[in-house]
């Protein structure tokens, strides 16, 4: 689709802002759970639209496959790791208030932020991985 001028230009303009929006959702998601999912989807969507318009090879150049695969695992590890950290800090599993003994609410903020980050990384990793395998190998 490289010859497709309009789509190409529009996509180029779009991609940075979509990525930014993903990070925005990620970082502002801590006022209610669920932000990580959205962020992950949006983040991956940016790469997916890029891959559709420019092809797989440039996409992999920007985001190597190994990185994508590691993202999946690292996100989950981050998620569960925060839970364990809470345990070790003396709270119950996923009890983030222990992260800041003086201000439990801040602790909760931090905990949710990290957990959601884990979710976001995993979700985007999974989606990208699936798209890459799908697009790489499927032809009608």
């Amino acid at each position, binding site marked *: 689709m490289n010859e497709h001028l309009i789509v190409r230009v529009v996509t180029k303009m779009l991609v940075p802002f979509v990525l930014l929006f993903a*990070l925005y959702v990620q970082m502002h998601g801590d006022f209610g759970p669920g932000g990580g999912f959205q962020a992950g989807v949006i983040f991956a969507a940016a790469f997916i639209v890029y891959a559709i318009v420019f092809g797989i090879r440039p996409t992999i150049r920007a985001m190597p496959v190994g990185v994508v695969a590691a993202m999946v695992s690292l996100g989950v590890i981050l998620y569960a790791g925060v839970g364990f950290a809470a345990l070790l800090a003396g709270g119950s599993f996923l009890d983030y208030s222990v992260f800041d003994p003086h201000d439990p609410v801040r602790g909760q903020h931090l905990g949710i932020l990290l957990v959601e980050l884990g979710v976001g990384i995993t979700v985007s990793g999974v989606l990208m991985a699936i798209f890459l395998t799908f697009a790489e190998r499927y032809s009608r």
Partner: protein
Amino acid sequence: MLSGRTVSLFLVLYGTWLLLSGIWEPFLMIVGVIACCLVVVLAHRMAVIDEEGHPIHLALRALLYVPWLFWQIALSNVGVARRVLSPRLNIDPASAMVPASQRSNAGLVAFANSITLTPGTVSLSVYSDRIHVHALHRASLDELLNGEMDRRVRRMEGEV
């Protein structure tokens, strides 16, 4: 790497971030810087920071063009709605080549998208010097062939 365009992209992104955040909290502002840096790095790796992907040079003059375009969109919306809703379906489809005098790809895209955005005309195909346009009614095509939109877009590109 750190071209003017890159810096510009960073600033625009950060502005958007602040606007979206709406909270002047140091933590989020710092996170915003990190986030924008990350995006710029990724955008750079994806090679989208160029005059096509970040046509900041058009921004100022676009402020003049956009209101006119919106007015055109409003007018043609009403027009197309009337045609669609008229009992006998008052349409007369036609397609033709419309000359395009823009010099840059960004300008060409702006022109083509403007055509598509105004209901009643759709850009079918873009060539370096002309755009293949389809219209719901011959009248819209004739109006486009006047060349006013072409001129205004080229003015946005900056006249030589």
